């Protein structure tokens, strides 16, 4: 038997590596997609954009300040 550069084992390993790679890409797509869906389901998104862990009066709409 001669040494072959490409053995059947290499083909199988490549298939496995490609498979694992695709699974990881799929997993990333799922987590990203879920994040987008969950954030979009949070009603008005601006309420979270203005949240900064401390009170920021300059972000409160003017009408409310006037009252």
């Amino acid at each position: 038997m001669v040494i072959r550069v490409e053995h059947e084992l290499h083909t199988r390993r490549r298939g496995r590596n490609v498979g694992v790679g695709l699974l990881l890409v799929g997993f990333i797509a799922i987590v990203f997609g879920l994040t987008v869906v969950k954030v979009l389901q949070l009603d008005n998104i601006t309420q979270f954009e203005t949240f900064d862990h401390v009170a920021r009066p300059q972000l409160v709409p003017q009408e409310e300040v006037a009252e």
Partner: protein
Amino acid sequence: MTDISANDRSYEAGMGDYFALMKPRVMSLVVFTALVGLLVAPVPVHPFVGFVAILCIAVGAGASGALNMWWDADIDQLMKRTASRPIPSGRVAPGEALGIGLALAGFSIVLLALATNFLAAGLLAFTIFFYLVVYSMWLKRATPQNIVIGGAAGAFPPMIGWAVATGGVSIESVLMFALIFMWTPPHFWALALFVKSDYGRAGVPMLTETHGRDATRKQVLIYTLLLVPVALGLGLTSIGGPFYMVVALAMNAWFLKGAFDIWRRDDAACEADKHRVEINVFKVSLYYLFAHFGALLVEAALRLYGIGGWSW
């Protein structure tokens, strides 16, 4: 070392071998019934969340398949039907199957909890536990009723699908569970009556071998009779309707007639026509489940146009 083929003795599994660990055919039934449970629920689910939920349920089912193959590898190699599975045929190491099964189970449960709710994830976790511990470890080798109680594992998916949408359990989801639960014994025993199995050689008690074929025929009839009120009762709930009822009446009459025919036969009659009736009833049982869940889907679709269910 002069030849790379020296490595051939230790076979390295390919993706197909790992996929086979997950019992893809069982997974297809799980996906179908879980999808119906999710779609007939009165609460709409975002399509992407629904897709991820069904994927999680399918992967969870695959994980229990892998864990079952890990546990049963010793008896699988003794039976002709299972000897070519990845572990007994040496394509996947037992430890690998255990690792893959546990990892996939963990992934699917956590992802389902994050994507939907804790009840759905809890039901999925319980299903995997039930299939591996209650069915595979405790019942399968201990009692000929293994298939009856073990059937619960296959009955949970529509209940999980319903929980994904509603976040709860209700009479509808319990009856969908009961439909598959009561359907499993006559479906499986009809198969056991015409397939020459070697369960005895592997030490697995099967009703046909422990109590005989006549007792099995009687059990097929009893469970089919018990199945009828469950199937018709489901039609009276909020997810049923006239269309479902017509389908259920027809399918139950067909299945019941088959069960009666099996019950009236003896071994000589079976040998004479090469188990024609048993094979037929087994096929009918497959149509039976598909038709019931398909009819539930049709009712849900009709409701979108205001003509489904009992209220119109």
